[in-house]
């Protein structure tokens, strides 16, 4: 991990009519960091991710991703990022290698690159034997690892994972986090949303969104100390309950 900033957001805002989904959020993500982006459903996580991935234009504020401005350079951003959603984005009626080939082609890899990377990818995952199987027929856990590896196929600077582990069993989840660490140690920045609070503990830093704003941000250890609680989950609960007193200074660590 170094100090180079790959995501910078300053007062990033998105309004839908009268409703402000994301309200002036500011944060930085450093290269090679595993950044956890937490928040309850409807807190504005998805809207924030959509702005950062160039799917949605912000209503205000500034942000850059991999050095590209989100307003003017969304095409360049798209080349430099990988993306995986909770629905895994693989075509079920295509085989494993057909899926890899499709996404490789979409990101303009040459046939030779695609062949080489497909081999390496399947060997690393130990999935060579299912290269010709339809995605539909392989277990959910394998699909998930595969989707993650496909999102990294074009070697992006940053990979966005939108609730990548929802609906998978705890062991598979742990294995999946090993893949995330592997990617991060290879220099890929990982921006991950999750609603499993135990996973938050695996992140280098987390931010917690409530009602469109960032309620707290820092390393899991710092946050627990700051809020005087045992786990990130407790931090989350404290933040999510408006009745409880907020810890001063939590918005900008």
């Amino acid at each position: 991990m170094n100090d180079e900033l790959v995501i910078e957001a300053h007062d990033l805002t998105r309004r839908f009519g009268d409703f402000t989904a994301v309200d002036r959020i500011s944060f930085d993500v450093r290269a090679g960091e595993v950044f956890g982006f937490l928040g309850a459903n409807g807190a504005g996580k998805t809207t924030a991710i959509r702005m950062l991935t160039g799917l949605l234009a912000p209503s205000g504020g500034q942000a850059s991703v991999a050095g590209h401005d989100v307003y003017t350079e969304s095409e360049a951003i798209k080349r430099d990022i990988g993306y995986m959603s909770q629905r895994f984005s693989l075509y079920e009626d295509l085989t494993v290698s057909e899926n890899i080939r499709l996404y490789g082609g979409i990101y303009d890899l040459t046939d030779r690159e695609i062949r080489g990377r497909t081999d390496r990818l399947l060997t690393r995952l130990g999935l060579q034997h299912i290269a010709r199987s339809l995605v539909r027929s392989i277990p959910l856990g394998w699909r998930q690892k595969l989707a993650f590896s496909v999102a990294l196929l074009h070697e992006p600077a940053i990979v966005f994972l939108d609730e990548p582990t929802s609906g998978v069993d705890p062991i598979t989840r742990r294995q999946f986090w090993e893949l995330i660490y592997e990617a991060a140690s290879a220099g890929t920045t990982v921006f991950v949303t999750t609603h499993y609070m135990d996973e938050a503990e695996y992140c280098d830093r987390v931010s917690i969104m409530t009602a469109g704003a960032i309620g707290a941000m820092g390393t899991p250890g710092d946050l627990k100390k700051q809020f005087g609680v045992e786990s990130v989950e407790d931090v989350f609960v404290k933040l999510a309950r408006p009745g409880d007193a907020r810890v001063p200074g939590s918005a900008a660590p």
Partner: protein
Amino acid sequence: MTALLGLLRKEAYHILRDRRTLAVIVWMPIVQVIIFGYAIRTDVDHVRLAIVDPVPDEDTIALRGRFGATDTFQIIAVTPRVSTLEELFSSGAAQGAVVFEAGFADHVARGLPARVMLVTDATEPNTGSMVQNYALAVVQRYEAELQTRRPGGVRIVPEVRTAFNPTRASSNLFVPGLMAFVLTIISSLMTAISLTREKETGTMEALLVSPLRPWQIIVGKVTPYLAVGFVSVIGVVLEARLVFHVPLRGSMTLLLGEGLLFILVSLSLGILVSARTSSQRVAMMAALVGTMLPTMLLSGFIFPVESMPWPLRAASVVVPAKWFVTVARGIMLKGIGLRYLWRETLVLAAMALVLLTLSTRSFKARLE
């Protein structure tokens, strides 16, 4: 370019691996044309006819013979009294009746108007009016014959002629319309469903965050289905020729080309629909209702547009099928070419352009 080729290959896999859907989209048009082709027939055959002839004479007997001689009519009763008609009609025994006045031949001979009344069962207005026309034609033909034998003695009634379709076979008119009908539904449905399926499974999101441009996504979607639609067109044209004996007087190449253009319009319509809906079910309903009703009602396929009130006539202008029906009938029945059909072709091309641009836009709009 590689990206686009990849998309096309992927779409081809989708189509080829989903055998059931493929079978439906290739066979459905062909089967539907058969079903509709036989169901929607306005040909009248063996119409049960009652004859009321109070005082039979040479002319009424001759005319009765004429009616009996055609396949169109089948004389089921000859009666001297009008009062028996009511019973024949209400029991459904008779679909039409010819009522002569007494002294028919005498009036004809003396140059006075000889009255014959043609009664039809109007519960089926279309059949009724067809029967009326046929019966009228029989009477008029007889009248014309008398005229040649006794010049100046009989009033001449102008003969009604049907151009290009002298046999009055309704399949000639219906099959081109059916082609439009079936192709619209299938094409718009196919793209609408396959696009919303990608939205539902989440793969659309992956395509949208990728560097693919909206137009590439749309071209990748449209092209494979254009090919499938083309296979359907060929099937339907062959069927029209072999099963319904619809003539193909014009150029086959032109007909297939226009068919392709029309499919492109319908596919784009499907994309536009799916860009605005998020579930397969909604897209399916929207595509069905949005294309089926206008195509059925406003394309001239069943009901002639010319005889509609002006608001409907105006609305029919935006129905793509209306233009394609004109083109298909022109090529198949009249044997005319682009020299006469360039206007319709231009309208279809413009529609394709506008719809494709709109759908690319609505894709972009999703991103902003």
